[in-house]
Structures are given as structure tokens and as C-alpha cells.
């Protein structure tokens, strides 16, 4: 069956596909951590463009917006934690590069062999009028359990992130039983002194 994507859409998908993989490779090639972050952002935006060409308007916009913000935050962390954020000198910080490349290439070849040998059932798909409406009705109806699990997972993430990022909690100040006479603070002063 002929694809119902227009010639322009197929061309856009091909170009964006090459761009996404090229940007993905660039993440691990460039010297600067900031450049690596923005290469990853380019890869995400290319994938968002492909999703847009595939009629998944909502998911494409969510991907583009979420990843832009995520990479902006990541750039800040990059500069905080990296010894070479500006890329002023060449730098590679890898271990077992050959083994990792072999695993990566092996997985790619395995997936590609499957992709090109499977007889994909692409006959006569029935397209919904609005893919966003289809998704919305699914997550508020037949697939609500998925949204419930996602909600609990995100809530657990908020709690765990706060616990991990807290430098000194009440147990550090007042002991395991919260019954210390005076709180153990690095700077004296405050209440209960």
C-alpha cells in the first residue's frame, strides 16, 4: 500500500531523521558540555518534527516544549558539575569505548535486521479525525490506569527528589529520635538554643 504521507512529508521525515541521529552522535563527539546539551536538544526537536509529520500534533508539541526546558535545566547542571563546560580544550572522558561501541552497534544491527525482515501489517489503517482527542479520551477512559500509575510515580519522584536533594534534614539536626537537647547546627543561634 502506498503511504498516505505526502512527498514533502516523507522528505521532511528523512531529513529530520538524519538530523536526529547526527545530533545524537554529536552529543558524544563535541568537547563542550554545553554544546553536547544543545546537540541533544537538536536531536529531540528533530524527533518532535517527525512526530508532527506523523499527525501526532500534541505529542510533538509536548516533546518540543518539555525537552527545550529540560535541556535548559541540563545545561545549568552541566556547567555546575563539569570540569570543561566551555570546551576550551579537547576532552574525552570515556571508559571501555570499544566495548560500548560494539554493544551499541550490535543492538542497532539486531534491531535493523528485525525492522527490515518483518512483514509489517500496514494495510488499510483507519485514521482518527483528531489524534489528540483520541489520546485524551484514552487516558481519561480506557487507559486511565496508565495515568493513575504515572501520577503516583511522579508524586513519588517529587518526594524522592526532595529527600535526596535536602542537605540537612530534621534528623541531622535533632538526632534519630528527634529528642536532642540542642539542635546540631553548623551555625549557632536560632530557636531552642
Amino acid at each position: 500500500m502506498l503511504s498516505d504521507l505526502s512527498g514533502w512529508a516523507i522528505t521532511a521525515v528523512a531529513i529530520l531523521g538524519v538530523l536526529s541521529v547526527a545530533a545524537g552522535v554529536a552529543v558524544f563527539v563535541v568537547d563542550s558540555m554545553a554544546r553536547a546539551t544543545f546537540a541533544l536538544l537538536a536531536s529531540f526537536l528533530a524527533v518532535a518534527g517527525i512526530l508532527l509529520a506523523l499527525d501526532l500534533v500534541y505529542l510533538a508539541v509536548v516533546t518540543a516544549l518539555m525537552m527545550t526546558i529540560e535541556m535548559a535545566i541540563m545545561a545549568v547542571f552541566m556547567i555546575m558539575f563539569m570540569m570543561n563546560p566551555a570546551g576550551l580544550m579537547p576532552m574525552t572522558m570515556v571508559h571501555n569505548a570499544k566495548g560500548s561501541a560494539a554493544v551499541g552497534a550490535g543492538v542497532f544491527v539486531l534491531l535493523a535486521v528485525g525492522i527490515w525482515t518483518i512483514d509489517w501489517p500496514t494495510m488499510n489503517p483507519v485514521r482518527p479525525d483528531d489524534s489528540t482527542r483520541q489520546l485524551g479520551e484514552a487516558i481519561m477512559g480506557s487507559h486511565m490506569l496508565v495515568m493513575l500509575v504515572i501520577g503516583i510515580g511522579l508524586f513519588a519522584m517529587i518526594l524522592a527528589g526532595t529527600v535526596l536533594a535536602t542537605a540537612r534534614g530534621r534528623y541531622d539536626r535533632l538526632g534519630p529520635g528527634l529528642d536532642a537537647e540542642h539542635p546540631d547546627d553548623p551555625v549557632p543561634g536560632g530557636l531552642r538554643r
Partner: protein
Amino acid sequence: MTAELVLQIVLTVAAGLIGVGLFGALSQQTIVMVMMGLELVLNGVLLAGGAAWYFLAPELPDAQVLVVVALVVMAVEMAMGFAVTVAFYRARQLDMIDMASDLRG
């Protein structure tokens, strides 16, 4: 161009992203770069899910829901990864995974 061929091309791109991401996650030494490799793997999953919806089963919402789950996993991975990085750095002043190899389970 047949729909099957376009699907195979898009899925090959997704497989390429997964392969590159896996290489990065296994080879990089800094924690943040390992996370970038994992994000690339999930990027490939997003693309494969979108392609599966469009070409194989657009009448069902399942593939779209899978893409939503992959997006959430990305957000959770990044938030928890940075929280662990901050906790590591605070406890030991380390930013490389090799320095934490004593945590091997």
C-alpha cells in the same frame, strides 16, 4: 513510496538513536553524560512509538499512550538523576561514576 518502506526507514532511525544512546550510556564517565545517553535511548522509543501509531494501528490509542509513558520516564529519569548527582557530590565531591564503583551491587 510504500507505507511499509517509510515505516522501516523511521524505525531504522529510531534504532540508530537507541544504538548511539546505548554507546553513550555505557562509555561515558560523567554522571550527567550517562543520563544524556539514556535520554537518547528514550528519544528512539518516542520515535518508534509515534511511527508504530501512524503506520500500524492509528485506530488504537495504545502507541500514543506508550509515547506519553516514555515522556514521563524521561522526566523522572532526569529529575532523579540530578537529585542523585547532587547527593553524590554533596557526600563525596564526585561527578564521575568510576569514583563510585564501590556502590556496585
